[in-house]
């Protein structure tokens, strides 16, 4: 694996290998000494053009547990803010000897562009409204850990699919791993081009094994994607009543950060059927696995 740009780059064996390695990495994270010498001497640059402390910290912890040197390159307050182009930044990173660049960028496809300009590996940590492949991998890992499998499960992804990189990556990955994915939300926010769609949350949740809630930004209301927060919550929010109508074994996921009271109620978010905290923990293991597969061999 040279780059990880899209969840669609992974076939089932490749994705399964990442999850298997992540399980080994999780064991390391459970030990007193949470460190492996694997990537000693390798340099990982976190190139973040968007504020995302949680994702950056997760990648930083992953790289450090593998003994890589980590350079955090935040676009704010740097030459990037002064208008340096991505290509010029790429050359700078190249000159610093970056073996891998973890990039978070507001423009879809920016990681694909960067991959043309650096010799090292590029890992997409979220690009615009395109993809967020490590989020999908950690979600798949969490599902497998809780449910014992992914193949044959019915996963409902609920909310603002249109603007969601998490949804795009999960659609690709979970289908590759044999799950049935239904996208749920108002027609304005759920593109039919991405696969099976439903506008009726109550109908879908009856036989869902996994309900993945997406963050809905309040600003969408001003763009007329839906009339009011209250109407959105009523039709597509997950509350206690809906949770109780889900099958007893079904789990609730959310990539965070949550809008409590908007797409998910505190009762649901804090219930034992919610995997929200595990998702964060698993993020580090999955990112360790990805970094290992990108950097752990001959370059």
């Amino acid at each position, binding site marked *: *694996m040279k780059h990880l740009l899209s969840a669609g780059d992974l076939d089932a064996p490749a994705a399964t*290998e990442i999850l*298997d*390695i992540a399980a*080994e990495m999780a*064991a*390391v994270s459970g*030990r*007193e*000494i949470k*460190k*492996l*010498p*694997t990537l000693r001497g390798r340099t990982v640059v976190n190139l973040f053009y968007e504020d995302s402390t949680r994702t950056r910290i997760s990648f930083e912890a992953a790289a450090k547990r*593998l003994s890589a040197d980590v350079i955090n390159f935040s676009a704010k307050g740097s030459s990037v803010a002064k208008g340096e182009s991505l290509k010029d930044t790429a050359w700078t990173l190249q000159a610093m000897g970056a073996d891998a660049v973890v990039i978070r960028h507001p423009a879809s496809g920016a990681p694909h562009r960067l991959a043309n300009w650096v010799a090292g590996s590029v890992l997409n940590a979220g690009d615009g409204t395109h993809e967020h492949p490590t989020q999908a991998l950690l979600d798949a890992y969490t599902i497998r850990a809780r449910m014992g499998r992914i193949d044959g499960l019915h996963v409902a992804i609920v909310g603002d699919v249109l603007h969601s990189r998490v949804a795009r990556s999960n659609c690709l990955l979970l289908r590759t791993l044999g799950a049935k994915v239904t996208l749920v939300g108002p027609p304005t926010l759920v593109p039919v081009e991405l696969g099976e769609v439903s506008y009726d949350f109550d109908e879908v949740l009856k036989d869902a094994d996994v309900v993945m809630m997406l963050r809905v930004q309040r600003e969408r209301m001003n763009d007329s994607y839906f009339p009011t927060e209250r109407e959105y919550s009523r039709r597509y929010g997950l509350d206690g009543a809906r949770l109780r109508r889900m099958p007893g074994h079904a789990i609730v996921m959310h990539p965070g950060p949550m809008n409590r009271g908007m797409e998910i109620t505190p009762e649901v978010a804090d219930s034992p059927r919610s995997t929200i905290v595990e998702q964060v923990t698993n993020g580090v293991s999955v990112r360790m696995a990805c970094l*290992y*597969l990108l950097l*752990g*061999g*001959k*370059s």
Partner: protein
Amino acid sequence: MPYSKIVLTDADVQRVVDRIAHQILEKTHGAQDVVLLGIATRGVPLSRRLAERIRTFENLSLPVGTLDITLYRDDLRQKAVRAVGRTEEPAGGIDQRRVVLVDDVLFSGRTIRAALDALSDLGRPSAVQLAVLVDRGHRQLPIRADYVGKNIPTALSEQVKVRLAEIDGVDEVRLESAA
């Protein structure tokens, strides 16, 4: 002329494993604090066989674990990325236990060096010993085995191929010319 000769038959392998089991019992005065840690891949079935023999001989059940040293290798950058195997700590852990590492072939010593590093990240054993089915020489590090099934003098270009029933369907050790 390429060649491939059997240096240990299946019966030989059985006898060697029996002997190592006896030696472990003898050298550790009954193996009361011993845990066996098989190094992936073929060290794992060997460690299970040793545990099974010791149970037969002494009615003593030793904890067995597996150790995958891939993430500790010092030659990762020389080859394409390797698959990572499972590491399972033996029941009760390794702290204050006498750990016997088990591997199939002792060669340069680098695998054992990596295993020792991995071990120190897992915990703090009271002592570490090494049991191998075959020692073929050509050490590159100051490492020696405590229990050796068979010493086989080899040329550097030769290959020692260990096959075990659990993985390969047959027990045998071959010495082969370079591929």
